[in-house]
């Protein structure tokens, strides 16, 4: 039934697929992505901010040629914003018109007013609709920002891929969408939801992989600088900071340094651009003077460099 041509046939194929779109994944991540695709299960990705959780969904949709439907979660997100809403103004007009034309059949009126054309479809409902390119990629981003009540609502969608609308009936996806759920762990997500998903903790990449990521994302960076950048960031992650930089910050910083035509890391240039890496004043304050020099020295004289 799931005749989707583009799905990769093995873990290695998945790895290649992601790599072909510039996402250099650890093998473990490729494995869970492959399993999620084959088993038709949602994939729950947890990890610190900036390690590339959201990126996975974007890359998958691009690589498989599917539509990307993104639901950004926030506190107060409700059914009207996430699933569907009725176009009340249009319905009201329809009722007035029916009145004007002397229509009195209530059943008929009800059927007319709660028809699909008055239904405003929000991301979750859109994701259940058939698509010519195959089932879409549904990204439910930063689920930890929504409140628990919404999480409970998701349970039905994630296990049965269907939504019930009281006035309209049940909408069921002919083929389950590819679902990626991400969380930054600002609170724990309920076990009931996690149980329906494959779970994977996305960690910071190894130095080697991060180097490859920097090279592919910032093509005009010199080999020497990229090594120093990665060495510095990796050393920074060892420090006792409130928020250590993620891969996204590494890329930002590498881009900033190339824009500034930096040849190698000096205390001056690092100090000027530290804001691209560290986002808390306390952390920036801590990483100054001797502490900074020490980490720079470590990064510049990195034996692997």
């Amino acid at each position, binding site marked *: 039934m799931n005749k989707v041509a583009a799905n990769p046939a093995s873990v290695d194929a998945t790895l290649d697929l992601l790599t072909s779109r510039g996402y250099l994944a650890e093998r473990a991540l490729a*494995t869970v992505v492959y399993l999620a695709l084959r088993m038709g299960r949602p994939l729950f990705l947890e990890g610190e901010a900036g390690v590339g959780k959201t990126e996975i969904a974007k890359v998958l949709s691009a690589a498989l040629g599917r539509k990307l439907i993104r639901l950004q979660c926030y506190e*107060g997100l409700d059914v009207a914003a996430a699933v569907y809403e*009725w176009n009340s103004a249009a319905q009201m007009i329809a009722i007035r018109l*029916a009145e004007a034309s002397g229509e009195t059949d*209530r059943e008929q009126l009800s059927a007319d007013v709660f028809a699909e054309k008055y239904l405003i479809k929000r991301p979750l409902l859109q994701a259940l609709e058939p698509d010519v390119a195959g089932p879409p990629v549904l990204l439910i981003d930063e689920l*930890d920002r929504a409140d628990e009540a919404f999480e409970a609502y998701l349970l039905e969608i994630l296990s049965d891929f269907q939504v019930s609308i009281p006035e309209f009936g049940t909408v069921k996806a002919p083929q389950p969408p590819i679902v990626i759920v991400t969380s930054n*762990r600002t609170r724990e997500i309920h076990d009931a939801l996690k149980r329906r998903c494959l779970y994977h*903790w996305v960690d910071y990449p190894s130095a080697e992989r991060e180097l490859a990521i920097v090279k592919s994302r910032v093509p005009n960076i010199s080999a020497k600088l990229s090594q120093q950048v990665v060495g510095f960031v990796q050393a920074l992650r060892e420090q006792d900071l409130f928020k250590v930089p993620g891969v996204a910050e590494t890329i930002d910083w590498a881009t900033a340094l190339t824009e500034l035509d930096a040849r190698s890391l000096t205390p001056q240039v690092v100090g000027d651009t530290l804001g691209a890496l560290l986002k808390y004043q306390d952390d920036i304050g801590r990483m100054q003077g001797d502490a900074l020099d020490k980490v720079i020295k470590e990064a510049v004289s990195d034996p692997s460099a």
Partner: protein
Amino acid sequence: MPNGVETPTTGLIADNVIGFARALRVAGLPIGPDAVIDALNAMQLINIGNRADLFTTLESIFVKRHEHALIFAQAFDLFFRRAEGADNMLDSVPLPPEAKKPPPPASRRVQEAFAQSKNVESHEIEEKNIQLSVSDREVLQSRDFAQMSAEEVAEVTRAIAQMKLPQAELRTRRFAPDARGERLDLRRTLRGSLRTGGEIVKFQRLGRIDKPAPIVALLDISGSMTDYTRLFLQFLHAITDARKRVSVFLFGTRLTNVTRALRARDPDEALAACSSSVEDWAGGTRIATSLHNFNNLWGRRVLSQGAIVLLISDGLEREADSRLEFEMDRLHRSCRRLIWLNPLLRFEGFEAKAQGIKMMLPHVDEFRPVHNLNSMESLIAALSSPLTNRRLDSRSAA
């Protein structure tokens, strides 16, 4: 010996996966039968010869919390290294402390209940009983929280049950039907109008949902606080029971999250679970380090939804330095309201002379005594007051 599990994978693999799942379950991971079936299905999709892939596959199905990843990794290592001799695998899996279940701690109360019903006749037995009760008191004074006497449980529970628990409400951004709400509910209005043939008789409304603000308690369990910790734990257990969003951390020389332990219904069971998960009862205090750990590891996870922080400590910190001030400041800035409960405040004419207290004071919204039931009640009144922004003049609130 595959018994009844119909799976195209070879019997040995299926047995291994099932055995492994059982081992993990013993080690404390919540694994349901559906997960095992998932795992068996997934086995058919990957090359099980590849150890790394096998690891990731099983991990993505069996591990649903990052904290469990380490246990899983160790168990996997042990189990699949020597899969041939899988018989006594269960013994070789390293178990986390919570998996080694001790007998339920309520037994002391049961024992006491039985002991009372006995008629004590001879002096010998009486003497023995006296000795027992003296040593009992010693046990209680050593504040091990292992078990509490029936009398104490009754007393404290009664007192706490009489308290009205805090229900300070927070406006959320979600809506629910509410006759006097601020927003028009067009959907329900329309549905209603269909009953009258399109005539709108009544406008339906939506109002914001209120829910209690989350509470995060940081309880000092160092030696100087021993007279109070049990009482506070009882109190925290009561409020954890009554509302959903309460997180409790204990700290002395290190920080321990006991939120889950406190969820147990029975107060004895809860306190026992608490004490078994804490390693530094009645030791020294390292407030700065504990706050640092809290800020870095937990702050973003439990304070993100506008939490009220209760810091219960006497503030007697030996190594009071700028770090303490820094961490207090950070804590203060990341929560809605920081209330410091200090039992030392019960003394008349208490002055903040200790260095640690001086450093912490500028960073709290409220500073109150808490040493008996009365002060606890006034704390509850404070928690129930409407949640406005910080009160800046609260330093003299005592």
